[in-house]
């Protein structure tokens, strides 16, 4: 009974491929409330991109598979391995990337095992996107409830908003647990073997795994995917004690809320935490090595985001400086941060704060992976790969049957990118040419309001246009002119489209505004499928919705070429 329940509520086919209408039906009949939660989490976090190119064509096959699974769940096989191997595919690391690859591998009929030394779900689920979304959900509501001006404009009266720190922390932790169980169940349900222990590559097509203190098991596999992910990067000179000097791993547990916290790094992680901490009453100081805050974003978006997310909040910042030394609070002294000039290395300032969060990015985790055994050397810690995620050895040659996806290869350190890469690899090992177009992978920062983008930033697009000799055009729309945004009294924000006026090709879309993270997919799908502006501008958007921001964006673009033929079939990407 247990088996059939887990099958129906978290079968991968429903997770990855169900269209929204089917999903609703599915839930009303089968699932209890919690599983609907898991569903959202997985779709949003893990498989955002990967669904796209398969929806439709594979759906029929999948429903059949589900029927089949129901009948034969007890048999617990996920394919028959190729001759002479224990498995067709062994994935080292059960994060979102490994999970995505495993699901797709089973779908392709490969006998699959996944090796995990820690907990299933990896960074995203346990120490990253998932718990942070729980905190951000809280911070978003706190912000709304505290914004008297905003509430009054809506005619609402709220006496005062408060929060219980432990309650908030529990929400984040519970969410992570829930999503983790969901991932585990979905793997088990498909019959993927979850092998516990640290995975080490012994040689070509040979992997050992085992817990410390136990004897190792050696297995053979036709193909191996490295998906070991990353850990928070802590620059040298910074002493992390887990209490007053912390990384995102600790911050997500929300053990205390300092009056004043310095956040080193103003990328996604830093920005999201600044949103959380300021909503819960902290004051924040950003320390950014580059001359500008939010260096990863399109400059214009960054500037306007700064006007909303930084300037009016209880946040100040130091740019162009490194935190050369951070000493945790002890002996009655506060956290001490020494700042040096990023260029001249001369001392600039000393800060004394209650806590410091190190959000300087993430470092690939490849320890104990046995890369030496296949003659591979990491570059700045990353496993070198080609565009098909095939691992490259010291001599620049491809290592047969070894692939690396996700944060460990450093191509694009996003959960859904890892998953997409994993699916791409599975496509290849099952005999199809497949190259993932990384420019079609959207990214989002879940501040309030959110920031999202796909493709090139304006400076990148200009550089490329100059090199390749074409013109680019830019058009922008504001959320201020969107009915739904105004109804929500959230007119702050803009969307920006970078495109080629000669062909109508979309080069990049950047959104800052209400629900930007959910809005970007129209643009990322268009890029992935090669849809041109002159075609997509005829697509209809429901009124009034936020999606009209993009509608307006596409309509305001001026494309010189005539209407091209509508895309008849998805273009391989």
């Amino acid at each position: 009974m247990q088996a059939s329940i887990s099958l129906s509520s978290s079968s991968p086919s429903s997770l990855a491929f169900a269209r929204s209408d089917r999903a609703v039906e599915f839930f009303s009949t089968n699932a209890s409330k919690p599983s609907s939660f898991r569903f959202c989490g997985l779709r949003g976090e893990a498989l955002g991109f990967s669904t796209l190119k398969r929806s439709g064509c594979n759906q029929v096959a999948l429903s059949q598979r589900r029927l089949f699974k129901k009948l034969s769940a007890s048999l617990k096989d996920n394919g028959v391995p190729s001759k002479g191997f224990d498995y067709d595919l062994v994935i080292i690391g059960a994060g979102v990337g490994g999970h995505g690859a495993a699901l797709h591998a089973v779908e392709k009929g490969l006998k699959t095992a996944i090796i995990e030394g820690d907990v299933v779900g990896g960074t995203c689920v346990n120490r990253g996107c998932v718990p942070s979304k729980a905190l951000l959900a809280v911070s978003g509501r706190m912000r709304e409830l505290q914004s008297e001006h905003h509430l009054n404009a809506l005619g609402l009266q709220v006496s005062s908003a408060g929060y219980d720190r432990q309650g908030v922390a529990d929400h984040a932790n519970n969410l992570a647990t829930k999503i983790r169980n969901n991932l585990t169940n979905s793997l088990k349900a498909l019959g993927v073997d979850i092998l516990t222990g640290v995975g080490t590559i012994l040689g070509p097509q040979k992997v050992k795994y085992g817990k410390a203190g136990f004897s190792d098991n050696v297995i053979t596999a036709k193909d191996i995917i490295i998906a070991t992910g990353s850990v928070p990067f802590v620059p040298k000179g910074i002493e992390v004690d887990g209490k007053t000097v912390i990384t995102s791993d600790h911050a997500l547990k929300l053990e205390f809320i300092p009056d004043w916290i310095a956040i080193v790094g103003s990328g996604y992680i830093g920005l999201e935490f600044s949103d959380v901490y300021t909503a819960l009453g902290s004051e924040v100081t950003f320390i950014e090595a580059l001359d500008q805050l939010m260096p990863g974003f399109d400059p214009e978006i960054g500037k306007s985001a700064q006007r909303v997310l930084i300037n009016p909040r209880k946040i100040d910042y130091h740019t162009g400086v490194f935190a050369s030394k951070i000493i945790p609070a002890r002996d009655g002294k506060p956290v001490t941060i020494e700042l040096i000039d990023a260029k001249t290395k001369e001392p600039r300032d000393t800060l004394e704060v209650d806590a410091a969060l190190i959000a300087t990015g993430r470092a690939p985790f490849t320890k104990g992976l046995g890369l030496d055994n296949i003659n591979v050397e990491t570059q700045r810690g990353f496993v070198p790969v080609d565009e098909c995620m095939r691992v490259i050895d010291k001599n620049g040659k491809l290592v047969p049957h070894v692939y690396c996806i996700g944060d460990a290869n450093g191509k694009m350190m996003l959960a859904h990118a890892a998953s997409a890469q994993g699916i791409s690899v599975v496509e290849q090992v099952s005999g199809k040419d497949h190259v993932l177009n990384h420019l079609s992978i959207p990214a989002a920062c879940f501040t309030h309001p959110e920031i999202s983008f796909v493709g090139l930033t304006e400076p990148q697009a200009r550089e490329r246009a100059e090199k390749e000799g074409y013109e680019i055009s830019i058009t922008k729309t504001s959320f201020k002119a969107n009915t739904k945004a105004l109804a929500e009294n959230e007119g702050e924000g803009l969307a920006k489209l970078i495109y080629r006026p000669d062909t109508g090709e979309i080069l990049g879309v950047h959104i800052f505004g209400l629900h930007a993270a959910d809005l970007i997919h129209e643009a990322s799908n268009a890029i992935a499928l090669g849809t041109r502006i002159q075609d997509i501008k005829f697509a209809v958007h429901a009124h009034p919705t936020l999606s009209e921001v993009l509608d307006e964006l596409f309509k305001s673009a001026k494309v010189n070429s005539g209407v091209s033929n509508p895309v008849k079939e998805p273009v391989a990407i």
Partner: protein
Amino acid sequence: MAGLLNIGTSFIPSSSTSKLLRYPSSLPPANRNNPSNRTLIQAKIREIFMPALSSTMTEGKIVSWVKSEGDKLAKGESVVVVESDKADMDVETFYDGYLAAIMVEEGGVAAVGSAIALLAETEEEIAEARSKANSSSSSSSSSSSSSASSSTVASKPPQEKTPEAVASSPAPSLSKQASAPSVVAASSVHPASEGGKRIVASPYAKKLAKELKVDLGSLVGSGPMGRIVAKDVEAAAAAAVLTESPKPAASPAPSPAKVSTTPGIELGTVVPFTTMQGAVSRNMVQSLTVPTFRVGYTITTDALDQLYKKIKSKGVTMTALLAKATALALVKHPVVNSSCRDGKSFTYNSSINIAVAVAMDGGLITPVLQDADKLDIYSLSRKWKELVDKARAKQLQPHEYNTGTFTLSNLGMFGVDRFDAILPPGTGAIMAVGASQPTVVATKDGRIGMKSQMQVNVTADHRIIYGADLAAFLQTLANIIEDPKDLTF
């Protein structure tokens, strides 16, 4: 269905660099409506106006200046990004020239049609334009938060400093003056700043200090490790405003001369009372004929402080909040609002008029908030501001300062934690209010906690008001202040 088809048509289309909207960003001199500028600005220095970007736009916010002061501009180049009620748009110039002076800084708001910058035709005219920007920005108050512009411009060429330009920056100097006494205290131990070499202030404190023009160097931090936090800046700004003109002064008792001793006093001379000081003196002597006594009470103000923080932005002042709370307590204790005119009877006053002692240059006056129990807190705050302005201009009418039935004297903003006041003749009671300070308190359940508490001390005429009356009144007042939700109705 029509609605669906009309999506977005009523909105201004988005701005884009490819189709910059052209607005006449400067107008011929004849169109200028500011008479003060007409004489000052010659034809070659043009004003850049806040354009009307939509039919409904009345004011616009400067998002960013694309060009900075001194930059050369070519006709058609975009100069500034303006945020209207609908969208952000680039505004371009119609003339060649130099961006001489920015009059409304980024983030500032200006009314449609008001000047936001000056455009000089030649490089030589830049300085001239700047001095003009100086005088016009100080004489006109069109730009709201942009007062920074006047100071930055003023700091540049000292040459043509018009009197107005000088007048435009009294705020910082005043605040310095006001906080001068606290500098002495600050030089004691400031653990977070290595003996005062460095200023340690929280991000929000820094922001506030910039906004309120408070010099952080002169503050003593009350935060962890002596760090300056937001409320230190707020307190300093409040004190600065008070010293600037009306200082809510003491009870009549500490001689008013003392308040204004420091500046401009010639030692070894005898200076006769002014009329006002004479009146104070007479009243003080007269008060000796009244048998007074005092009752004190400690009130927790956490809830009040929180409320204040919430509604401060709507112009509500602490004075108004205290007056309102007092008035509401008096409603329940009419005897405390009574007076003894002839030594034989109670005169129960029909209205509750709260007089608040205010120190003025060389004197003391008690503007009266009439019917403080009936007015809502916002009206009361407006009324109070009006009274203070009038007091400053010495335009208070007699009924606005001598109809008080109960007097409030607050020295809290100076850090005074308790004091006692002398009863003004003709009233029954006066309340002296001390500073609210974080205090360690033991609670009934055996825990130790931190609460902000202030001490109040009521002086009353014992012929009519007895100890039990004051005790009951103070208890009511404490209840109101500790649960201040009634104050906002």
